[in-house]
């Protein structure tokens, strides 16, 4: 089997299985099909993570290698947030209060793990070099997170009612992530120097802008295609208005089914 076929089988096929599995899971109503979708997505994810061992020659496996590095801290962050959020004042699905501490711990470990991947020796490296996709993921993540937290903080203050305290927490988080970016721009990390981070930060900015514009155009085209199709449809045949006889029939049914005493 040549290198291209191997990459297609061991990397691109598992990559395709992930969205396909999620799609089947979300669109199916039967539990068997939903489980099959989950299994497909999980199988795809496992295949992608194992790709550095299954197709070591393919350059695309750097993404699989990165996914393997990110699963741990990302899962801790998300699980931590889930535990913190649902051990608070929620109407449904409330967790015990003790889960809050566990959630905070998981979140902090996840965040320290992520920062350790830049400033400590946990940086994802492949064949002695920093994984090229880590230099895509990390600046994009930090840049978008600080911007989103800032927007969320102002939204809470403007739209929310007496949400100043919550807004201040989000300003703090945004400021904290912002200071992490400034630190990375000025102080060399264990494997990525400050100049290199600055270079990739602006590439991440261009990337985010391009992605937003590209996806917006796709949504506009999608709306246009549906609009053109709906316009091309013929008018549905209109029915004749009810005859006096039909009105009488309806009135008889209604009067037979209305009960209770007459109001004065």
């Amino acid at each position, binding site marked *: 089997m040549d290198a291209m076929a191997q990459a297609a089988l061991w990397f691109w096929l598992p*990559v395709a299985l992930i*969205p396909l599995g999620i*799609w089947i899971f979300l*669109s199916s109503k039967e539990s068997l099909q939903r489980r099959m979708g989950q299994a497909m997505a999980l199988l795809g994810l496992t295949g992608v993570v194992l790709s550095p061992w299954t197709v070591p020659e393919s*350059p*695309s496996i750097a*993404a699989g290698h990165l*996914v393997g590095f990110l699963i741990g801290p990302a899962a801790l*962050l*998300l699980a931590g*947030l889930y535990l*913190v*959020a649902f051990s*608070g*004042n929620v109407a449904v699905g409330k967790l015990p209060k003790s889960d809050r501490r566990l959630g905070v711990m998981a979140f902090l470990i996840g965040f320290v793990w992520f920062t350790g991947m830049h400033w400590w020796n946990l940086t994802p490296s492949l064949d002695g070099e920093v994984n090229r*996709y880590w230099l*895509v993921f990390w600046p*994009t*993540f930090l*840049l*978008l*997170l600080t*911007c*989103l937290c*800032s*927007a*969320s903080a*102002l*939204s*809470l203050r*403007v739209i929310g009612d007496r949400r100043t305290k919550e807004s201040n927490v*989000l300003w703090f*988080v*945004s400021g904290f992530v912002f200071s992490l*970016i400034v630190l990375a*721009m000025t102080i060399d990390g264990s494997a990525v120097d400050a*100049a290199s981070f*600055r*270079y*990739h*930060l*602006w*590439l991440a*900015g*261009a*990337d*985010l*802008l*391009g*992605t937003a514009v*590209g*996806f917006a*155009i*796709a949504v506009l*085209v*999608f709306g246009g*295609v*549906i609009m053109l*199709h709906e316009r*091309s449809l013929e008018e549905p045949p209109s029915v004749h208005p009810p005859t006096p006889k039909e009105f009488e029939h309806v009135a008889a049914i209604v009067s037979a089914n209305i009960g209770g005493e007459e109001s004065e």
Partner: protein
Amino acid sequence: MILSFLLPLFALLAIDLSLGGSVGAGADSLPRFANALLTAYTLGSLVLLGNLFFYADSRQRPLAPLFGMLAAAGMGLLTSVFLLENTDMLMENNGSIRAQIMYNIVHMLVSAGSILLAFGLALGLTFATITAQKARKTSFEEE
């Protein structure tokens, strides 16, 4: 609110300029922007094409919008290939057109993962800060 979203970006720009940087990537940002735009458009069109199957459920499965969306996604791919073959505008540090296209797709997947994680964390943090506060009492005035 848009300004509050852009505020950290402008602040970082000011800091980078004051550090003597020429906004980091400089000329390399343009190919990245163009590649991201075309890849996001093409992959986004394919995702929305999948979405049309749900729409088709309530419309006796018409084929015209499916072909329309497939043509739109094809246009994105053809534009990428045309620009890569005829100009150097979209080429980054990759040896061939095929390598650049593969790199664009994998790059977009990594970028999308990073965007989804950032969105998940921002939403989760907002929700967690709201639920962390004590339950509010609503008092009604007697008439």
